């Protein structure tokens, strides 16, 4: 699903965010991405979302080489990648329902289907009763669930999460992680950037570890602990 081949990302002459990173994530695999702050986690996620382009090497997502993807094709790649952020990026000028409907709206899904699919996503994250509320009225954990519902509402084959449990207490974090595990069980590839080492070790999944832009563990499935499935 995701393949990095000798990927290097240099921002300017003295700042190299990633150095010759190699790894492959298969369909339905759940992996963690960890490392100290500034190790290159966000850069790696940005490369997958085509927010950045690699300085060298190849990034392949869903069989598509992203290096020379024309700019106007980028939106169509992003429709296949659900993203969850630490600060969830919800819009507070509209309801929970409207927030989750956005990915469907940009794809031109008919209004009938939008209602059905948004409610299915809300049901999955256990917030079906709150569709008409403003995200501001929800707790931090609930907001994060709305963010997850938005990321999966169009059934992307790939789900990225950047510190999804950063602001949550351990119980809520475990809930969120279970949700991600469920998605991977039905074939969604999940990559979670996190520095919550306790949580990561509890999950016992493959862990990609970055250190100053180098991938020091988890590069091959055998290396970094048990494989997803």
């Amino acid at each position, binding site marked *: 699903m995701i393949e990095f081949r000798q990927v290097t990302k240099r921002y300017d002459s003295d700042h190299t965010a990633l150095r010759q990173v190699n790894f492959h994530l298969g369909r339905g695999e759940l992996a963690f991405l960890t490392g100290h702050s500034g190790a290159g986690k966000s850069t790696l996620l940005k490369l997958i979302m085509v927010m950045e382009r690699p300085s060298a090497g190849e990034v392949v997502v869903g069989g598509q080489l992203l290096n020379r993807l024309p700019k106007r*094709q980028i939106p169509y790649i992003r429709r296949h990648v659900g*993203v969850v952020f630490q600060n969830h990026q919800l819009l507070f000028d509209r309801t929970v329902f409207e927030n989750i409907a*956005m990915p469907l709206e*940009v794809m031109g899904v*008919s209004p009938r289907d939008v209602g059905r699919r948004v409610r299915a996503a809300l049901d999955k994250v256990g917030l079906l009763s709150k569709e008409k509320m403003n995200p501001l009225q929800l707790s931090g954990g609930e907001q994060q669930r709305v963010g997850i519902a*938005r990321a999966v509402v169009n059934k992307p084959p790939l789900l990225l999460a950047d510190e999804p449990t950063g602001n949550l207490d351990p119980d809520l974090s475990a809930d969120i992680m279970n949700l991600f595990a469920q998605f991977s069980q039905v074939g*969604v590839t999940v990559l979670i950037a996190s520095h919550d080492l306790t949580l990561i070790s509890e999950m016992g999944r493959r862990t990609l570890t970055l250190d100053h832009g180098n991938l020091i563990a988890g590069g091959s499935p055998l290396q970094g602990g048990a494989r997803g499935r």
Partner: protein
Amino acid sequence: MAADPTARSRKPNTARGARVSSAPWREQAETYITHHRKVARDSALRLWRTPVASLMTWTVMGVALALPVALMLLLVSLQGVSAGWESSARVTAYMSLETSLEHARGLVSDVDADSRVAGVELIPRDRALAEFRASSGLEDALDYLEGNPLPHTLVITPEEDARSADGVAGLVTFIEGLEGVEQVQVDLGWLQRLNAMTELLARAVWALATLLAVAVVLVIGNTVRLSIESRRDEILVAKLVGGTDGFVRRPFLYTGTWFGLGGGIVAWFLLLLSSWWLNGPIEHLARLYRSDFSLSSLGIGGVFLLIIAAMLLGWLGAWVAVKRHLDDIEPGEIAGGG
């Protein structure tokens, strides 16, 4: 939901494949139109929700549009005047003072026989003096003169098809050649000056219109830029979840178009108001000049054109802003550093 097993089989092999491929084209078209309608309505509602700010933008645009249109209407009115007076162009032939009245009468029939002449009137010198005495108020001064200084005069009205500049020139040559004619005067000089002036005015109006159109585009562009800034988060999220540039631009282009519509209507209203305010004095003035001059009004077609042009300018302004500012907003910045 992601729990759908079909998620396995959906691969983004081609970027195009990311489109909703299963929906028949008819349903897709309907969804597209529904989406456009929703965006158009949302943009209009946003303007409606800030009535004062919107009204101010509309007024600025209305004034900028009404000014050149008003000048153009004035120009059309003036051209109507000169066209009207051109048809009443007359050639005046002054006899030499020695010419007898009989000779002048003979000339009348000569001239009248020419195919280019519609009519000839002879003004004998005695009648000319009497008229001059009556209308000039110089009776006392005239009394000091020995005899009548005025000659017999022929006033010639050219035939319809001889009223062109060339035709009149030919006629003048013919009359000048007649015996006893001392001077021929064509009263077209002031008309030519008026024409030259309206031509100059027309150019000035076009230059002004162009400048004001640019101003309108910039005003709308700036307003839309502010609206882009205030909706930055929404734009980021839309781009993040795979909104195309077209999708992200659409609401702002509609906003610009609605600004244009409002501006066009305000301009129309201003034109109505000023023509209502000016019409009385203009009629009075025209009556004093014994002219049928009247201000042209726009008419339904003109109003329609004005509003369409305003909407196009609004759209263009929005497009400039969108092109400059929207493409800069990239979701890279929300993913944070690291």
